[in-house]
Structures are given as C-alpha cells and as structure tokens.
C-alpha cells in the first residue's frame, strides 16, 4: 500500500510541477499577480508530494518490502538500518528520486528567500525550475519508477553493493546532489534574466548567494567522496581521475569560475555574457554528471544500450534543457551590450584570465573523460586514459591560475600598474621562493615538482596573509576586533584561498614523501617503514551483521615506543558473496599510517600493504576550508541589506 501511495504522490508532484511551470510562465507573460502566486503555491505543494514519495520509498526499505523491485535489488534484511535507508540512493531509480526531491527543496528555498525579486523575474525563475522538475519527474514516472512491484515478492533482497556499505554512503550522495541541483537555481536566474532581457549588476547580486551556496555543497560533497575513496577502496589514493569523480569535478571548476565572474559582473557590470554562459554551463555539467554517473553510460555503453528508452529520454532531456538555454542565449546575447570597460592589467582582466584557465582545465578533464566514451561511440573499443594523462595535462594548465590567485587580490579594479603590484608583492615572492627551495632540503628530498608545489602553496598563503596585514595596518581598534570586523565576503575569500594553499601543500607533500611497502608478513614479523615499525601480531575471525571478517592485528611503534594498534579487515559479504578490503588508518596532523590486508599466502603469512602518508589530511582540510570560506561569504550582511534596498526600489 505504501509504495502505491508513493507512486501516487509522484504523479501529483508531476501535475504540480506542470502547474508550477504553466502558471508561473503564463503569469509572467500577462503580468498577472494571481497566476504568479499560484505558481509559487504549486512549487511548495510539489515539495510536499516529492517528500511523501521519498519517505514512502524510505519506508519500503525500512520495512524490507521485497515486493518492490528496487528494494529487492538494493537491500537485504540483514543490512543494518542506516545502510537500508542510505540504499534509497544506492541505485539509479532512487538517485533520480533524491535528485528531484532535492530540486523541490531548492525550489521551496527560492520561494522563501526571493521576496525581494521583481515578481515577473521570480515567476520566470520558478517556471524554469518547474520545467526542469517536470522533465525529471516524467523520466522517473515513465522510465525509472522506484515503486515498481515485483509479484510474487522474493524472500530476500539482493543486498546493497558492499562498496556502498560505508558511512560515506550516508553523507556523500545527498550533499553532492545538493550541490549539483543547487546550480539549477543559478540556471533559473540566468534563464529569467535572458528572457527578461536584463543582465545587470543587480542580477549578479541576486545570483551570487545561491551560486555560493550550491558551490559550498558541491565542494563538501566532493571532499566526502574523496575521503570515502581513500579509506574504502584500499588503494591509499584520494583521487583517481575516475570518470565518476571527473563528472563532479567539472561543474566544480566551472562553478568556481562562475563565482569569480559574478563578482566582476556585480562590481563592474563587465563580462556579463560570459557570466551568464558560465551559469548555463555549470548546470549543464551538473546534469551531465548526474546522467553519466547514474545512467551507466560511463561504466559501459552496453548497459546504456540495453535500455534504449532510458538513454534516449536522458538525451532528449539534456538536449531540451541545455539546447533550449543555449538557443535562448544565441537569440538574446546580441542585444545585451558589453558593459563596463577595463584595462589590460586590472582585477577584471586577471579574474577573466583566471576564468579562462579554469575553463581550459575543465576542457582537459572533459576530453580525458569523454574521449574514451567517444572512442566507444565510434566503435573503437573501451579504453581508459588514466592518471598519466591528467597529471601531465591538468596540473600545468592550473599553474597560471594559482599565480593569478596571489596577484588578483592586490590588483585594483579598472586599472592596475603591474610594476606597482609586483613592488608590493616582492617580499611575498622572495619569501615563498626561498622557502620553496629550502623546505624540501629540510624534509630530506628535493625534486623540482616538490619545490614547485610548495612554491604555489606558499605564494597563495603568503599573499593572502599580506593582504590581511595591509588591511590591519589601517586599523583603529585591536587586531582581533579588526579581523572580526573585516567584511564577511573578504574573510570568506581569504579563508577559501588559504584552503587552496593547504590543499596544494597536502597534495605536494603526500606525492613527494609518501612511503609505500608491499610485503609478505607472518605473525611476529616487524616491518620498518619510514621510521615506523609495523609488527604483525596475527589474525582473528569475526562476524559482522551481514559479513564475515578476518581481522589483522598490527602494533605500530616509533623508536620502540608503541604509537597505535591497527586492525585492517578482509570482509566477505554473505548476501552478494563479495570480498571487500577495509583498510585501517591512524590519522594525524602530520601523517597517516595506513594498512591494507592483501591475500593470504602460504602458511600463516599474508600479503600486506603499508603506507606512511605525510600531511594527507591537509588535502581534505584544505577543501573544507574552501567550503568554510563560501559559508563566510554567504553570511555577509551586504546581501541582506542590499536585498531590502532592492525591494524598496522595486516596490
């Protein structure tokens, strides 16, 4: 009964999405306030019914209702409750439902926080989001219904893929989707502006907080995913340039460019067309990411082709949303005007250059991700270009962006003099070059790559600190009071940029100084890795809720003193008959110790992988600092103040 209720709720949500789009656009066309208000109510109602559908699916998982096909294929009664609930988004159909529910949530947020927008603009925004929702709900109802029954029911479900049975599964997908889907709001703002024919600084100011919010979620989502891969996959890596990862990284790169472009459009009314194009592109990439990951087109074109209806639908939806937006862009762009002028050397030109670099970097990622796909499309077989391609192409492309990060925060708007800028930054440059050259010597190994990585991190960090210092010099009160009193948006920028520095530092030091050893160990053996002694004490067997485990026992010592005890596991999941490796990690500020159990060898011996990974936690700390910077920027009272001013202006 409950699944049917969920199905019915989905149908009602579909009708309300149609009403939302229809009433909002009709109201905007006739400037009819009542129609437009009906659109708002429909949007809120849609959220309620998406929520009911989502909770119904959750209940089916909770109650182990294996007469629902989707539940039977992604759950099992021995699965712990929190994984049963996370299994809602463990497959294609449920992910699509999560997507739509998240979209409805963002739409409700828009209806609540958009009172300051002109009524017609707001209606077009909600109408656009309604159309997107309509497309997704149609897709779910006709091609990916999660409530489909399987009569007669099976007694036991097939279980959730063991790789997904991890705390990361509870957090990572919803946060990532909040990011992906959040860009639909930004997209809606772009479409509404193009429809209305007004692209102005005010539009940029309205768009900025939503862009930042979506970006914060996306940043956090990618970070959680990377951490998950680090401890779950047992390879000790934190980023694999895997197609699924790239699919989330591309909208992040373009979204980052968009945040900076919006700043220029707001402050200087410049490169507006570029900004609006970025807004469209970011959401398009988010859509592409959703589909590439969820449709199975990346894992195998064949899986996609086995359900041509689904594939075709996705293509039509993508074509409609993105193609429609780009057509609108082509029609409206010529009338928009170019906006504010700026000099060859200015903050605008540097932000534009940074934008171009980020887009070029996105291009390289896209090429490496889609090229194998295209080869397959052209019937040339399935291949993987892998990290060698990305390491040699992506990293050099990003270097100029890192240099610009330090420079741009000092450059004045409109016109800057390069010699003056470099004069102000000569100490920053000198100190970061000297430290980048010396630090690797102190750490015991000097390579050009380590020095270069450290140089970038130090340059970005030092320029951020000097920027704050220059502001403090002009202070009147105490230091702490002045720092707290700085504009939130500025604080956010500094924290986010410092996050990039911390991130680069972590990446450089892990790549440069990590030690990995693969060995054969018998109980009682001790291995020395980078000064740490790893003693293998033996193994024992244990039972989990739905798996059997072999647990290794390792005592780690430093100069003979015990540091920690690590217990890596080798699990065998019973329902799906799959083995999994659970690495054991001891994390620290300066280093992680990482052990993964390999295969049993002859006698009591095991193959074991031991890693010492210096500063690896800095990678994620840096990413979370970027997200925290975004949150600080969101807290800037400027938005609220100007919003109320704008309301008075239009009232």
């Amino acid at each position: 009964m409950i699944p049917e209720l969920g199905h019915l709720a989905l149908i009602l949500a579909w009708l309300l999405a149609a009403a939302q789009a229809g009433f909002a656009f009709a109201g905007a066309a006739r400037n009819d306030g009542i129609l437009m208000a009906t659109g708002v109510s429909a949007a809120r109602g849609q959220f309620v019914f998406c929520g009911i559908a989502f909770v119904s699916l959750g209940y089916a998982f909770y109650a182990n209702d294996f007469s629902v096909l989707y539940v039977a294929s992604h759950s099992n009664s021995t699965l712990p409750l929190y994984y049963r609930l996370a299994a809602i988004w463990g497959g294609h159909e449920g992910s699509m439902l999560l997507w739509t529910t998240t979209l409805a949530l963002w739409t409700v947020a828009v209806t609540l926080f958009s009172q300051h927008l002109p009524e017609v603009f707001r209606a077009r925004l909600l109408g656009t989001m309604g159309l997107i929702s309509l497309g997704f709900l149609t897709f779910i109802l006709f091609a990916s219904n999660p409530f489909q029954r399987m009569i007669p029911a099976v007694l036991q479900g097939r279980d959730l893929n063991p790789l997904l049975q991890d705390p990361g599964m509870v957090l990572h997908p919803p946060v990532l989707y909040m990011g992906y889907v959040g860009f639909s709001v930004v997209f809606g703002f772009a479409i509404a502006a193009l429809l209305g024919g007004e692209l102005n600084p005010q539009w940029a100011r309205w768009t900025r907080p939503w862009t930042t919010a979506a970006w914060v979620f996306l940043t956090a989502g990618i970070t959680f995913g990377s951490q998950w891969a680090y401890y779950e996959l047992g390879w000790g890596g934190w980023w694999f340039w895997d197609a699924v990862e790239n699919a989330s990284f591309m909208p992040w790169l373009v979204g980052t460019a968009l945040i900076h472009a919006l700043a220029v459009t707001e402050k200087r009314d410049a490169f507006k067309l570029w900004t609006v194009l970025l807004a469209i592109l970011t959401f398009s990439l988010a859509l592409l990411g959703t589909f590439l990951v969820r449709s199975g087109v990346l894992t195998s074109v064949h899986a996609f082709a086995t359900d041509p209806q689904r594939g075709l639908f996705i293509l039509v939806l993508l074509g409609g949303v993105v193609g429609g937006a780009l057509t609108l862009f082509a029609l409206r762009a010529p009338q928009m005007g170019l906006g504010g002028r700026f000099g060859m050397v200015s903050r605008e030109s540097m932000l534009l250059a940074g934008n171009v670099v980020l887009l070029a970097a996105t291009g390289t990622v896209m090429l490496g991700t889609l090229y194998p796909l295209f080869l397959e499309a052209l019937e040339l077989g399935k291949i993987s270009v892998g990290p060698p391609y990305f390491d040699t192409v992506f990293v050099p492309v990003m270097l100029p962006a890192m240099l610009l990060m330090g420079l741009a925060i000092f450059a004045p708007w409109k016109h800057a003099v390069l010699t003056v800028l470099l004069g102000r930054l000569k100490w920053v440059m000198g100190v970061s070059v000297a430290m980048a050259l010396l630090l690797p010597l102190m750490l015991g190994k000097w390579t050009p790559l380590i020095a270069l990585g450290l140089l970038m991190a130090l340059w970005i960090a030092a320029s951020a600190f000097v920027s704050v210092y220059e502001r403090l010099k002009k202070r009147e009160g105490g230091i702490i009071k002045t720092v707290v009193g700085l504009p939130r948006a500025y604080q956010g920028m500094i924290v986010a940029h410092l996050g990039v520095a911390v991130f680069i530092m972590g990446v450089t030091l892990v790549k440069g100084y990590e030690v990995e050893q693969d060995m054969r160990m018998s109980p009682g053996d001790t291995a020395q890795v980078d000064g740490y002694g790893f003693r293998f004490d033996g193994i024992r067997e244990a039972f989990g809720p739905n798996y059997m485990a072999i647990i290794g026992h390792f005592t780690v010592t430093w100069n003979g003193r015990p540091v920690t005890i690590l217990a890596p596991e080798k699990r065998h999941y019973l329902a799906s008959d799959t083995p999994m490796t659970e690495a054991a990690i001891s994390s620290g500020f300066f280093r992680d110790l990482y052990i993964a159990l390999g295969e049993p060898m002859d006698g009591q011996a095991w193959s074991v992988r031991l890693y010492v990974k210096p500063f690896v936690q800095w990678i994620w700390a840096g990413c979370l600092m970027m997200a925290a910077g975004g949150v600080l920027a969101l807290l800037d009272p400027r938005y609220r103040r100007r919003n109320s001013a704008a309301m008075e202006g239009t009232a």
Partner: protein
Amino acid sequence: MKPVLKYLLPLAIFLVLVGFFAASLKHDPREVPSPLIDKPAPAFRLPVLNAPDKTFAPEDMRGRVWLLNVWASWCGACRDEHPVLMEMARSGIVMVGLDYKDDEAQASAFLSRSGNPYTIVVVDADGRVGMDYGVYGVPETYVIDRAGIIRYKQIGPITQKALREKILPLLQRL
C-alpha cells in the same frame, strides 16, 4: 566570423556533443581493423619488470604464437579484464604484459595481489613502444604469430565473447 554567429557557437558545440552521445546509444562496438594487422610487430627492447638487468624483445618469441597485452595498474578496465587473463594463462596461452606508463612498484603490487597471468612483463615507462603499436588507451591486446606478424588487435578488455569467438579460434588456426 559574423558577430551574430559567435553567439551560436556554444549551441553548435553542444549539438556536436549530443551527436556523439546519440551515437553511443547504438549497439555493441566491433573491433576495427588496425593498420598494423598483418604487418610485422614493431621491434623494441625493454627492461623486464622487477629485473631491470634483463630485457625482452619480440624476436625472442620467434617461432611461437603469443599475445602482447597492454595494461597498467592505474587502469580500471584492466582490473575487469584480469580474471579473463588469469583464465587464459591457466589454459596455457603465452602472454607478454606491456606495463604502460606505470609506476613499477604499483605494477608489481598489483600483480602480487591479484595474480600474474603473464609469462613475462616488460616496462614501457614513457609509453614509447605503446606509440609504435598505435595504442589508443589501456587495455589493448595483440595476437602475434610464429613469424612475428600481428594477426589481431583487441581494443579494450578481452571479454569472454571476444575470447570465445575471435581469439581462441584464431589461436587454434595459427
């Protein structure tokens, strides 16, 4: 370019992309003839994995039918292919692994963990030999006959189907 046309550029690029996606909705890809088919296998001499003082060259295999499998530890599709390779090794097929643009430690870790299906593994650290063989990406496999002539090229992992229908019949003929 006319000024108005440049605003159409994003749409045009997008349509090309959609075209490719539409093409990828089609059916099973077939292998394409490589320009190297029925040509002598390009010569090389490369160090052997974990034994850098030893080297291997295709002429060492003269008089035998063998497979050259291009792989790497960083390649996900190779992990999918690996069980098939192990099965082939058990049935006595001679395979040489070309470890392509890989870290040697990672490569030997992969083999010691998952099993080594290769008679010998050579290290193509900079991918130069891969270039000579026209490698698009990893994995790829070449069937080379007694006279050192390439007779077949598999792009992407060897599937059970490709093994059954192409490679095994070919090996029986050779």
